[in-house]
């Protein structure tokens, strides 16, 4: 068995003492090349688990281990931070409004690789091209970009770190299907070529089905079902999963 990159053991997450836990009983192991989907009700704790995985929220009980150590002692510039990257659900809020798309991506390359500004800028251009952003658009600040363009800047910034695990929270929710297809193909290629592990949080069950091998279904802060993605979606056992599947829009558009 290959090394475990991320391990979550019986973790519970709370935002404040007085509040009920936002997620409990979370268990998960992520190895190179794994791809895990997290689906579930809005407000059920998916983003919370994502924050826990990348160490921006510490568990109130249980543990989250990255390459065997807890996030708590990890400093800001510790190289282990680089290997776990997150694409945020809200691309607008997570981007610096003063930086162009290119500068946003170049900044992380400079920070992690110590690359010279000119080198970082041209690498940034390459990474942005991989997510379909080219030309004059990459010199624009977030306010001048469309929703889908901003979302791709967030993806490019995460990929520029050459992570081993990508936690992607609704990474394609603002993308039309053809650009979404480009991004999904890119993730699939990175998985094949570099063993990129993926934790994909998504409301789009067809994307989860397409991209992941295992999936967790969350409801009210708990995992109510988990297993092989395809089997789970074909043969759901929990009532909530069944409802979820029966609510997929466009059944009349089915498979072309």
């Amino acid at each position: 068995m290959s090394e475990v990159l991320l391990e979550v053991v019986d973790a519970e997450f709370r935002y404040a003492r007085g509040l009920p836990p936002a997620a409990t009983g979370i268990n998960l192991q992520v190895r190179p090349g794994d791809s895990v989907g997290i689906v579930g009700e809005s407000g059920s704790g998916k983003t919370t688990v994502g924050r826990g995985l990348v160490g921006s929220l510490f568990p109130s009980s249980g543990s989250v281990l990255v390459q065997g150590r807890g996030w708590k002692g990890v400093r800001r510039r510790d190289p282990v931070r680089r290997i776990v990257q997150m694409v945020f659900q809200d691309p607008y809020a997570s981007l610096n409004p003063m930086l162009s798309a290119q500068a946003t991506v170049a900044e992380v390359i400079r920070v992690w690789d110590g690359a010279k500004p000119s080198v970082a800028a041209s690498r940034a251009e390459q990474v942005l091209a991989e997510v379909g952003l080219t030309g004059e658009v990459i010199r624009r600040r977030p306010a001048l970009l469309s929703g889908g363009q901003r979302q791709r800047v967030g993806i490019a910034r995460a990929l520029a770190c050459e992570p081993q695990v990508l936690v992607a929270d609704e990474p394609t929710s603002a993308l039309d299907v053809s650009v979404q297809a480009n991004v999904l193909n890119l993730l699939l290629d990175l998985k094949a070529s570099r063993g990129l592990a993926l934790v994909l949080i998504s409301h789009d069950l067809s994307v989860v089905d397409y991209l992941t091998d295992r999936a967790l279904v969350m409801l009210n802060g708990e995992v109510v079902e988990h297993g092989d993605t395809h089997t789970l979606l074909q043969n759901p056992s929990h009532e909530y999963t069944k409802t979820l599947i029966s609510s997929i829009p466009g059944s009349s558009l089915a498979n072309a």
Partner: protein
Amino acid sequence: MSSDLLTITGLGVEIAGLPVLSEVSLALPSHGVLGLVGETGSGKSLTCRALMGLLPRIGGKVSDGSITFDGTTLTGLDESGWARVRGRQIGFVPQASLNALDPVMTVGEQLREAVSHLDSGAEVKARCLELLELVRLPQPQEVLRRYPHELSGGMRQRVMIALALAGRPRLLVADEPTTALDVTVQKAILEVFADLRTSTGMSLLLVTHDLGVVVDVADSVAVMYGGTVVEFGSAREVMTNPSHPYTAALLGARPATRTLGERLTTIPGVPAVPGQWPDGCRFAPRCAFARDECRAVQPALLAVDEHRARACHGWLGTSEEAVVHV
């Protein structure tokens, strides 16, 4: 058509002198639902902004064409004129609503402000709770006390929808309003819109990239590419039997058409962005059927039959062929 609540005719928009929309035409009957789809960057959100009179805030202006709502021309209204339309006549759920809320005000404060401003007759407290219940937020009392950052993405999105509905608008313009919602809540929200249409006659202009949603809820659909409308007509017709190569390619790129591990079909080439629109048909550089005529003359949006119009010099292929395998 006189029965149309909203008509946009030949709309052109410029930002800082750069054309970003051109020849955008569409119509929405009262009680109707229009889906607006198209590639990222194709101009869907800018069309919504134009419709809400919000272009000046981003340094943009209408350079051509007109927008008519219930017989009144909106283009040319001054700010106080727009203020009377916004919220009461036309409600707006902006895209990326996740951060459109005021971070330092609780949900309750923001809702109360909207309700007392837009709905003078309402009993404010009761109306706020009613709105949160309407958008299917569990524990509405609790949500009123929360700050936006204390809510999940989908909860914030539902608060934005509640705000847009506060003025009981006759038309709701919703720019990707359900991207942060799971399919069950999305379904519930779409049902809320359908109920409002039945009970109050509210029309809906729904921007979405989910073609399944379009088929389920829209009567008609407008497909945008490169700052213009390339196909417009009955949603069922357009989505099952597309008459424009771009629409056909879009339908072929859905993950549902492929199985695990198989690469998805994409549309080769890059989207047409403002400032770099090609001459002639803007889709020509990526179209499998492009010929000299296409590269020379921009096709106009013309009726193909009684169900739809398209902007294409003619394409005789099937939807399978429109999807170029790369």
